[in-house]
């Protein structure tokens, strides 16, 4: 009983929302936002997709399993910490790229860490929602 109206609306809404969540993630450093909220918004969007098109479709669209997403997120977060250790600095010290990139602004290991948080949050929320709504 998938409602046609909802699925068409979702087809337009989803990209917008994902964009918004990435936008929130990237400018988290200077304005309200960050990995956690971005992750929540993104997972809300994907939850909407799973409501509109069903969990199987959502899993296919996502291509990788949410639990793998958790793993990747954690790896990125820890990886960003190890980078500074490679430079001989203590674990998780912030390293920054000098040049300011056009779109992303200042890029550095904390941002990478934030991306890790972003992915973990999405993975966590989706794992639970998909597991719950699967019949």
């Amino acid at each position, binding site marked *: 009983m998938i409602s046609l109206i909802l699925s068409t609306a979702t087809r337009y809404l989803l990209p917008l929302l994902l964009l918004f969540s990435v936008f*929130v993630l990237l400018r*988290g*450093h*200077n*304005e*309200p*936002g*960050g*990995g*956690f*909220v971005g992750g*929540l*918004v993104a*997972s*809300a969007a994907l*939850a909407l997709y799973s409501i509109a098109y069903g969990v199987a479709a959502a899993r296919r669209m996502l291509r990788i399993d*949410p*639990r793998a997403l*958790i*793993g990747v*997120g*954690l790896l990125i*977060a*820890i990886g960003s*910490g190890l980078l500074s250790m490679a430079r001989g600095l203590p*674990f*998780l010290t*912030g390293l*920054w790229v000098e040049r300011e990139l056009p779109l992303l602004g*200042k890029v*550095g290991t*904390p*941002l990478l*860490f*934030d991306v*890790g*948080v972003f992915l*973990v*949050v999405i*993975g*966590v*929320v989706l*794992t*639970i*929602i998909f*597991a*719950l*709504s699967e019949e």
Partner: protein
Amino acid sequence: MSLILALVLTFVLAAMAPRLHGLLREASGWVLALWPLAWTIYLGGLTGRITQGDPLYIRYPWMPQLGVSLSFYVDGLGLLFGLLISGIGALVLIYSGGYLKKHRHLGRFYLFILSFMGSMLGLVLTGNLIALFVFWELTSLSSYFLIGFEHEREEARQAALQALLVTGIGGLALLAGLLLLGEAGGTLELTVLLERGEALRASPYYLPALILILVGAFTKSAQVPFHFWLPNAMEAPTPVSAYLHSATMVKAGVYLLARLSPALGGTAAWQIGVTGGGLATMVLGAIMALGPSDLKRILAYSTVSTLGALTFLLGLGTPLAVKAAMTLLLAHALYKGALFLVAGAVDHETGTRDVWKLGGLGPSMPITATAAGMAALSMAGLPPSLGFISKELLYEAQLHALHLPALLAGAGVLASALLVAVAGVVGLRPFFGHPVHRTGHLHDPPPSLWLGPLLLGGAGIALAIAPDMAASPLTTAAVSAVLGKPTVVELRLWHGLNPSLALSALTVLAGAGLYAAQPFLLDIAARARLKEWAARWGPQRGYERMLQGLNALATTQTRLLQSGFLRFYLMIIILTTIALVGSTIAIREPLSRWMGRIVDARPYELMIVVLMGLATLMAVLTSSRLAAVAALGIVGYGVALLYMLFGAPDLAMTQFAVETLTVILLVLVVYRLPRFTRLSGRPARLRDAALALAAGGMMTALMLMVLSAPLKSRLAPFFAANSLTLAKGRNVVNVILVDFRALDTLGEITVLAVAAIGVYALLKLRME
């Protein structure tokens, strides 16, 4: 450097023992014995230097912040014990090679024995309290494995557990005592601590530390009332009984008392506790030794008695007493080790250890008989054995004791007489008594089984005949270590005619009498039903009742708390929180102080708060679950709005997002939940309401308390200042999350990950 290497190698060798046994098969006992032999030679080499009063002191930092270092301090006392442990260890390894030849787990046995030897050597050679405690516990652990070696048998497992529990609890007390001692003395290093005797005795911690250490020593050295685990430990294979439960491990408590006597000795408490405990154990142990018919249990009780004598002598603390103690220690280790090994040999050949069923084995087992004879001579304290010299010194010490020497000497004679009788029972009856056993095909056991007892028995005699050669220097070094000042010890076989000689003669006569009268004595004991009385009131019964009580407590507590109902767990958690936090608030904070802070709120803020209150009420009163979910949604949105109104946009966004996802999750969960089967009754609801109100009230009080507390935290300015410069971000909240306190966030997302996997597992589990 070499000492710590040798110790580590002992443990490495222990780890490799099973494989080595696989390769060497028959000769594994002999080959492995080479390592303790090397230890003996190494320690022997040190004697020259140590007897001149120059102890070896090596120190490695282990936990510098806690002042714990793995240091080694080898003085006379440590040396005497070290030689005993490694010497007897070598003989025991050879012996167990033969005794357990066919046993399929012999490799594992070597592992345990060698790791025990390593930990025992560590215990006697270390110079740091904490390292001493670690080795102490290691010995208890390896003894647990050794006693329970034949784990198929129920009695062995129970005996092992009993030994572990008793010595374990003692170990715990010891740790507390040692820490108190370290606190009072200001250091955990033994060498420094021993010089601060005065300060220790004067400090308020002295008495508790002493009591705790005594509990540790008394449980380990099987003093009354903690002695019952030792006879039960006879379930272990005989080499273990010979090595651990007579020569070395049970002496750890005695070693500890000797080691700490310069620091703790001399006070009234020490006198009463140690001397009294020792005296009682000496006499009771000897009396109980006459009872059993099993050879090993008799020896175990007599060991308890000798341990009592050693503790008693250390309690006296006079130079004479310490001299007697050190000699008795040496003599006892030799003859008791020999007798245990003989008992093993007899058991190995005849298949029984019942004293009444053995007799007239002498002719068919000549070598074992001679070894047993020599050892029994030393045990009975007859010249020319080391036992005789130590008994003479014991009597001298008792006669010259400061107060009530007559009583002490009397107890000494009684105990020694009983030991003479026991020596007769153990050493003479099986070999020279009228032949009971069919002697046909009996013969001496293989060399590995008679070498040990022969050497040990022989040493008991040889050291007495020529004391200056080895016995005197060793005891001199040991005594001066215990007394804390250099004293020279001249052991003489013949002290000339003096009262102690008379006492010795009296003891031997009394002993012979007791030996002859033993059957008669046993009848009296049987008629007086001594055994049942002891079984009902003895410490063993106390131990069992304690265990049963513990189990009962555990079951009731589990049944009470783990009722299986989720809401029951919730209730307990909330109740405890309220009790703890509530009481602290009530005590700490006068209620009046922070009541008047709620007035300056704007109309729409108030409206939101009122709405939240109503929504909560609705969530509580509604019977439809989804209405409750919606109401909770309102509360969540209200909180988020308040965050925003009070200038926390980050928080507001997160709260909105979390709130909505919670609603979605709750909707999904409610969809799966079965209909309400039955709603809780009125009393239950009232109880829950009261609980909820209490919890809410507590939280409000907490919040108001936090509000009124002056927040002079220096964190906020630090983060505000450095957020842009260091972390290149103006949004302080996210900068903290991702940069300054990234480690916390890392922890949080890991927790999230684990939670998700947990939920996933639970759901998938239910699916199948």
